[in-house]
């Protein structure tokens, strides 16, 4: 019978706090009158802020909790902070939007908090069972959130689709876990690693198990060919949910991928690298070519998000190479951060233009933005350049870091494919710019201080953080995975 102590709880205090706060908020919300639901948003933000403080206080800690089921290290602390910040931004994005679209209900923020706690657990999970549980904790609230605009059909469809395919992906992961357990006799990442080092009786089961886990997580991060759900779900979900999902679910998925594969599966990296390389190539090519054909900004950003998953996965290919392992994690973390900043900014712009009943989402609705709302257009320009990877933006720094890792790992062909698909992406990102600046039109916008703030902060951050990237690079590289 393993012994737990209070220390274990203290180590995961930020997550425990978020879960407790969410439960309390669920009750508090019952007693709030319908017109005062903004108080729930405010309280949720407060909770995230407090958890963020706890998280920052943990910097430097490296420890196991709950007999090695969870691990707190630089990696998890970095991701937790990123997730909490993403949550704060998502609340800012949702605040007016829910009111404007007439779907303001307190559960929204509570569900978000639950999903965030899942993401945080995911970044700390050192046991496959915990990985699965946190994946469900992360996903189930997201399914509900995707359908939050019911009875709007698109939103219901999005929720249903996301749920079905998510459950499917969960099945893959669970089956993979079972096979890995069968092959190694354990679900703990370090024990799996040790068992694999000592030689396995049935290495094929191990390999298949790892591959199934890869497929399941591939669904979560929307890698091709497991991406089918993404455009429809992104398009149908309420926009702030899409924004949250695009960043948060990605963080969760990559947290699990990085930790599981780097810690537990380095011994089969030679077998898996070609598979992952193939997924990367498909993701980059399909994501970027399909985006070219899009006429709806939400679908365009969905495909763009798929292609960025491809870029992050690209750095992941050399995960078994001991010399570049830590750079793999650092490059992925840095890119996730750069993607989060840029992505939230662009979604804020989308929301600024979005009108009721799905209007204002076509690319044509951006015509004339450059002339009529120069500041907003400038911000969108910055985001598009950052997505493309043109300096001086954070997106460029991220790609620079990624490509270095890929080259260090010796995958020159992948790097070339990466830059060529970047070029492809320039075409559709620049089309947004062309429409904004070079076509005439009279776009309608919603002037909301919170949205403007998110847009402005993200745009300034995207540029300024490029010039002062040193601390960010340092955080990302110091956010090392605890290896054994």
């Amino acid at each position: 019978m393993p012994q737990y102590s209070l220390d274990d709880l203290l180590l995961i205090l930020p997550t425990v706090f978020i879960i407790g706060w969410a439960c309390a908020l669920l009750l508090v919300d019952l007693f709030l009158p319908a017109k005062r639901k903004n108080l729930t948003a405010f309280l949720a933000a407060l909770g995230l802020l407090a958890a963020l403080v706890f998280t920052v206080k943990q910097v430097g800690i490296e420890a196991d909790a709950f007999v090695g089921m969870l691990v707190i290290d630089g990696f998890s602390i970095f991701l937790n902070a990123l997730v909490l910040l993403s949550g704060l931004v998502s609340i800012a994005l949702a605040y007016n939007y829910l009111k404007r679209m007439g779907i303001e209900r307190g559960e929204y923020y509570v569900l978000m908090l639950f999903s965030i706690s899942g993401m945080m657990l995911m970044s700390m999970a050192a046991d496959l069972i915990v990985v699965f549980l946190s994946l469900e904790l992360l996903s189930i609230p997201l399914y509900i959130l995707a359908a939050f605009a019911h009875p709007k059909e698109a939103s219901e469809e999005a929720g249903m689709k996301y749920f079905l395919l998510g459950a499917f992906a969960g099945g893959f992961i669970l089956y993979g876990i079972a096979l890995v357990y069968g092959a190694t006799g354990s679900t703990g990442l370090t024990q799996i690693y040790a068992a694999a080092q000592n030689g396995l009786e049935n290495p094929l089961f191990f390999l298949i198990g790892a591959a199934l886990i890869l497929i399941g997580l591939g669904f979560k991060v929307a890698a091709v060919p497991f991406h089918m759900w993404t455009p429809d779900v992104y398009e149908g979900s309420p926009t702030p949910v899409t924004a949250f999902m695009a960043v948060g679910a990605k963080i969760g998925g990559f947290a699990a991928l990085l930790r599981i594969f780097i810690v537990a599966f380095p011994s089969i990296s030679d077998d898996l690298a070609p598979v992952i390389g193939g997924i990367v190539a498909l993701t980059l090519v399909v994501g970027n070519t399909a985006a070219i054909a899009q006429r709806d900004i939400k679908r365009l950003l969905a495909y763009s998000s798929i292609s960025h998953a491809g870029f992050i996965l690209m750095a992941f290919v050399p995960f078994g190479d001991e010399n570049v392992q830590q750079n793999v994690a650092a490059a992925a973390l840095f890119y996730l951060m750069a993607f989060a900043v840029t992505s939230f900014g662009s979604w804020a712009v989308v929301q600024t233009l979005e009108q009721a009943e799905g209007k204002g989402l076509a690319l044509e609705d951006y015509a004339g933005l450059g002339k009529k709302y120069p500041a907003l257009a400038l911000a969108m320009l910055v985001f598009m350049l950052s997505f493309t990877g043109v300096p001086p933006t954070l997106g460029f720094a991220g790609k620079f870091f990624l490509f270095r890792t890929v080259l260090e790992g010796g995958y020159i062909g992948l790097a070339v494919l990466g830059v060529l698909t970047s070029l492809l992406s320039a075409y559709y990102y620049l089309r947004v710019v062309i429409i904004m600046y070079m076509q005439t039109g009279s776009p309608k916008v919603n002037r909301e201080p919170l949205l403007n703030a998110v847009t402005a902060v993200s745009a300034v951050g995207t540029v300024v953080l490029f010039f002062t990237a040193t601390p960010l690079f340092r955080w990302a590289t110091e956010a090392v995975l605890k290896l054994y």
Partner: protein
Amino acid sequence: MEFILEPLNLVTFFPLVGVFFLLLLKKEQAGIARWISLAASLVTFGISLWVLGQFNAGNPHLQMLIKKEWIQVAGWNLNYAMGIDGLSILLVLLTAFLTPIAILSTWTAVEERVRDFHIFFLLLEIGMMGVFLAQDLFLFYVFWEFTLVPMYFLIGIWGGGQRMYAAIKFFLYTMAGSILMLLAILWLGINQQTFFLPELVYKGGIPAGVQYWLFLAFAAAFAIKVPMWPLHSWLPDAHVQAPTAGSVILAGVLLKMGTYGFVRFNLPLFPKAAIELAPTMALLAVIGIIYGAAVSYSQKDVKKLVAYSSVSHLGFVVLGIFALNSQGIQGGILQMINHGISTGALFLIVGFIYERRHTREMDEFGGLWKIMPVYAVLTLIVSLSSMGLPGLNGFVGEFTILLGAWGAGSGPLGTPLYAGLAAIGVILAAVYMLFMFQKMFLGPVTNKKNEDLKDLNWREILILVPLLALIFWIGLYPAPFFNLISPAVDNLVHILDAAAVALH
């Protein structure tokens, strides 16, 4: 503060002051916007002269070097490094010189969104300066890619009817080349542990086989920018659609970034590959010279004619560079300046007539000499300079290049044939330029619409006078220019000679 006042930082970033004041303006204040932009670019030109004053022509190495740590974590070794030497000083001066001239040319040509136009223009100047001064590969790449953005907008917003197509073509073409260079830069950074150019050159030791690939990756970026045949197809579109000032800067400075890149990076970093690939590069250059000239001859739109003539002229520059000897490279660098002046002037001249008649079809004109004598004389001088008449600047550059290419016949190029073929290009240049001049200016006035055209006004003459002065100065007394270039070029040739010895 000291850091900001470094001469090279000042000359690069001073236009930001102009941008700042422009941002304070209201959209309607077009007049003030023009003056602010002109003032900012003139001060920048002044600073560049100050830099010239401090420049020691006898020193072959980098001067006024600034090196500050930028990102130094996680195995990164990125510096903010700027420096100037004989390879770049003239290009810096050219940039600072052409920008106010181009701005002055927009006075009546750009009426829409004037403030934004000048913001982009000044940002472009910053990018170009940075490209010529950066001494760290990462920093260089940042400036290099950044220049795409303002130019993209200058073409896309203020360009002609097909501007969107031209703008995106320009962006994608150039980006296609530079992303391959990015991978090569990363390879260097990983394997040589530094991005600082002098250190990379000093370290050397890149295996010949790898040099080949790296050379090609860098060359992809530069050859598209120059543009070398057969990668030139973006250029006519960009030029024809760009507003006059954009064309002036595009031809005058932006294309030089490509040829400068060859000199600054390809030759010293990959000398062995440069020696082995020199015949190929020279061949492409010669094809470009003749192809550009032939296509120019068949144009009906005078702006397109000038655009294709750039392909031909820059072929000369590339030929000179890949002669890999002192004469060739010096001639190449001087010819970059000459082309910037002459072709810049030609685009201005085309712009003047376009503003009056809103057409550039040569068939629409004829006998303009009788109506606009001042304009005709100035055009004649610039045309003669462009075709390389002795006594004017073009001759000096082309002649030195041909001498270099001829001399390289016994060296890396293997045969003097390249020089011989390039000489045909000089003749062809005379053919298409004179053909153009004859058609537009000589003979009777054939089109009634031209009868009331006004001759150049004081502002337009003022724009051309400094360019003409340089055309004569370089043509008659080029020694001071060569003196600035030669020590650094000789230094570069030493590196190449050492590599040649190692090869054989």
